């Protein structure tokens, strides 16, 4: 395996994706080392997609033991009830490796808390994905990734709802796009912090070479950002649902040990309204309907929703690494009840 060339076998295996994103992206994937924290349903989907994609190294960090409810969406677990109570990662690693033995796959069952103290550990990776973390841990981790200049993706799900938060620090992508009726203009903000910085017309074609630069806010800014109402027109603001404040509220609520536990509606309501005030969005968005749904579905795993979130996140990592497409900047929300998937720049 040479550094800058794909082997004939790799080209044959990755044929259908190379035809989409090119050899250069495939080579970038082959040289990327990624850490993924926690292997829940969303983590399972992300790992599947990235292993299939052909990354260089993936380390999974998770110290949990198998719980009965894990069988809802974590399809690498053996189909054997007796594994409940055993440490999860050693039970799944072989099945993951089978997907693509070209990827260096490793598992780590130490606790995140103890590892995070050691910056050298995180430093070994080109990118970190953290799933199912609470806010305190997210901020702690983000401090480190910021300091080390490592991009961070944060993701998780609550039943029919899911989220992706990104702090990729900064990113520049160059892609060939079809020239529309209106030429692209340097300086255009596609969204906040996502700016066209260069446009060249491609010779002998109707295409433009477009450079887009993304700048990211640290995640602690997202949690108190006042940007959301500015990005919505009056009508959008009026129909804004309670999904954002409720998902944010759940970052401050501990995941119950018993999957049948319902989160106290009052606790959730108070927390969500606090967040509405912080984000400068109307408290009325937190309707009783949404409160009820979120109190029941908080932290619940559901395979098809995990597939959408895990698919979108893995896809975005590939875009990020390819340097060809501009990544999600910086909050993606999935509302599978209403089939909506907005991206906000907070």
């Amino acid at each position, binding site marked *: 395996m040479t550094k800058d060339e794909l082997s004939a076998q790799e080209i044959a295996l990755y044929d*259908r*994706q190379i*035809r989409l994103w090119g050899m250069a992206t495939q080579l970038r994937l082959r040289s990327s080392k990624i850490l993924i924290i926690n292997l829940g349903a969303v983590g399972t989907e992300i790992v599947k*997609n990235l292993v299939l994609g052909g990354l260089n190294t993936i380390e999974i960090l998770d110290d949990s033991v198998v719980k009965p*409810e894990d*069988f809802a969406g974590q*399809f690498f677990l053996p189909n054997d009830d007796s594994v409940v109570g055993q440490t999860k990662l050693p039970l799944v690693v072989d099945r993951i490796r089978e997907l693509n033995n070209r990827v260096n796959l490793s598992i780590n069952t130490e606790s995140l808390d103890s590892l995070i103290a050691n910056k050298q550990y995180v430093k070994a990776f080109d990118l970190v994905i953290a799933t199912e973390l609470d806010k305190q841990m997210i901020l702690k981790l983000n401090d480190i990734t910021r300091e080390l200049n490592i991009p961070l993706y944060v993701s998780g799900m609550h039943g029919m709802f899911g989220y992706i938060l990104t702090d990729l620090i900064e990113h520049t992508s160059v892609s060939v796009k079809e020239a529309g009726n209106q030429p692209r203009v340097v300086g255009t903000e596609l969204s906040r912090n996502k700016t066209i910085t260069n446009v060249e017309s491609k010779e002998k074609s109707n295409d433009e070479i477009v450079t887009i630069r993304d700048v990211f806010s640290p995640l602690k800014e997202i949690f108190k950002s006042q940007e959301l109402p500015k990005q919505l027109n009056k009508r959008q603001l009026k*129909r804004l649902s309670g999904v954002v404040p409720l998902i944010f509220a759940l970052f401050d609520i501990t995941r119950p040990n018993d999957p049948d536990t319902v989160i106290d509606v009052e606790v959730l309501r108070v927390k969500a309204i606090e967040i509405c005030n912080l984000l400068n969005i109307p408290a009325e968005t937190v309707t009783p309907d949404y409160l009820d749904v979120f109190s029941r579905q908080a932290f619940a795993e559901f*395979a098809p929703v995990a597939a959408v979130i895990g698919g979108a996140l893995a896809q975005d990592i590939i875009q990020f690494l390819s340097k060809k497409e501009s990544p999600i900047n910086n909050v993606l929300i999935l509302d599978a009840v209403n089939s909506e998937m907005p991206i906000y720049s907070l």
Partner: protein
Amino acid sequence: MAKDSYLKKILGAENFSRIQSSKVLMVGAGGIGCELLKDLVLTGYGEIHIVDLDTITLSNLNRQFLFRQNDINKSKSLTVSKAVQHFNYLNAHLVSHHGNIMDTNKFPITWWEQFEYVFNALDNLEARRYVNKMCLFLKKPLMESGTTGFKGQIQPIYPYYSECFDCSTKETAKTYPVCTIRSSPTQPVHCITWAKEFLFHSLFDEVESDQNLTDPNQIRSETDNEAEIAFFQKESTELAELRHLITTADPPTFINELLVKIFKADIERLLLIDSIETRRGSRKPTPLDVVRYSSQLAGLLADVSNENILNLDTKMWSVLENIYVLYKSSEVLQERIVSGRESSISFDKDDEDTLNFVAAASNLRSSIFGIEIKSKFDIKEIAGNIIPAIATTNAIISGFACLAGTKYFTTPSHGTDYSAITHKSSTIFVGITPNKYITSGTLGPPNEKCPSDALVSRGVFKISPTDFTTLTLGWLIGQLENYGYSRDDISIQKSNSKLLYDIDYDDNVDLTLASMSGLKDGELILISDDSDQLESLELYINIAEKTSLPELVLRPKVTHDEPEQENEDGLLENGMDVENDGVILLDSEAENEENDDLLIIDDEPSPKRRKIA
């Protein structure tokens, strides 16, 4: 074991048990199929039937995560249901069928009746249309889904309540004028088409199979330049002679004749008739200097290690290398025919010999016309109609397909009255923008011009074996009057358009249904109202235990004679964007593809109105 705690919380305990006792069909076990089956199994579907006729290939493994290296060449449908057992935590009953969904012997209409819901995970237009039609006959809800590259779409179909698959037109393969391909190419794709569909086809494939590129009527419709027409005829004659040489000459003679005739003599003849009119924007061709290259070719051929050139898929071969590849591939193809192993050879992108031949021939033609050379890797994509496909888009689309299908099971059922679920459902289009990842749209009513569901109703006409041999066509006509038809106004045709009855042709009225030629189980009959009052009715004849006609209310016939302008408005009202964004080429040959989870994006849906959570 509370494995289902979350599912009960999310779906509701009652809905969850409805899902657990349901029986659904998934057609296709490829890119979307693998992902969708995982989602369906983990959502708790009770019984899932899987139909696919394909076998697994290496290029599937980058995304069809249920398959492994040692599954290559095995049946997809059989392999997926085995693979799923690893995580069949909720004990779904999986039934695999290796076969073509359009095979009416294997999958008669009575077989279809058992399913409550149909998920399409197909890669070709023909099968999609067929499943759509079966679902219209049986009024089964259908989930249509497709992806290509980073884009994808789902469309829930509730027969006669929402648009069916045929309600919007699909892009089909682009065809090029014969003259562009045969005398005035300007792009690599023209030369690839020429090499594959004209040169390769004429030399090695079955002669009888239809050939647009040699059709004299087609040629005359494009050009009235007699010299050019004569050129085309001469070229065809020469190819017939070359084809004869395959079995009568040795390889060096055959290949030398091929090079001289096709890449030199023909081009010289083309130059004799050269004019602006015949050029059509193409460059003036330069005949291949066969003599100059022949000694160098001999040098290359002398060293066996040069065979490695054939494996350099991503390299741009030089003219000499292309001649070398043409030589080596012709030699093998000739041997395959001479040995009697094959009487003819069809182009197949996965048949290396045919691909090498087409790549080299196409590149030589490109160099003659001053067009850029392409690598074998790129030529394979164009010649083989390969659609890029990735794991992530398939995962996302399958997730949405599962969610939208599951919505049907969490909505109170009203038999085949789908108004409530149609109102609650959305199409979803995945296409990433800075502000949103998906665009969803409400389900529009059937397109009033759609031949599949708007101009005709469909149903199954069940008839017992005894009734079939005793009841007459006259009896059937009487039954049809119950739908509101008048016997004086209708005509009845078989699917092949053969007339069975109208007011001026009542010869068959006293014949039993069984004695009418061709009427049999699985046959279709079409009833049309010549007085234009009621829509047409298509009946699927099914020999069954008990005789019954479908229960349905025919709609008044819609006539279309409005001016063009109004039609366009009508399209807009249906929520379709006139400007196509992200339209995907659907190639008619894509059905030969082993693995592409082909997307059919008609139009991006308009933003939907908000629905209450």
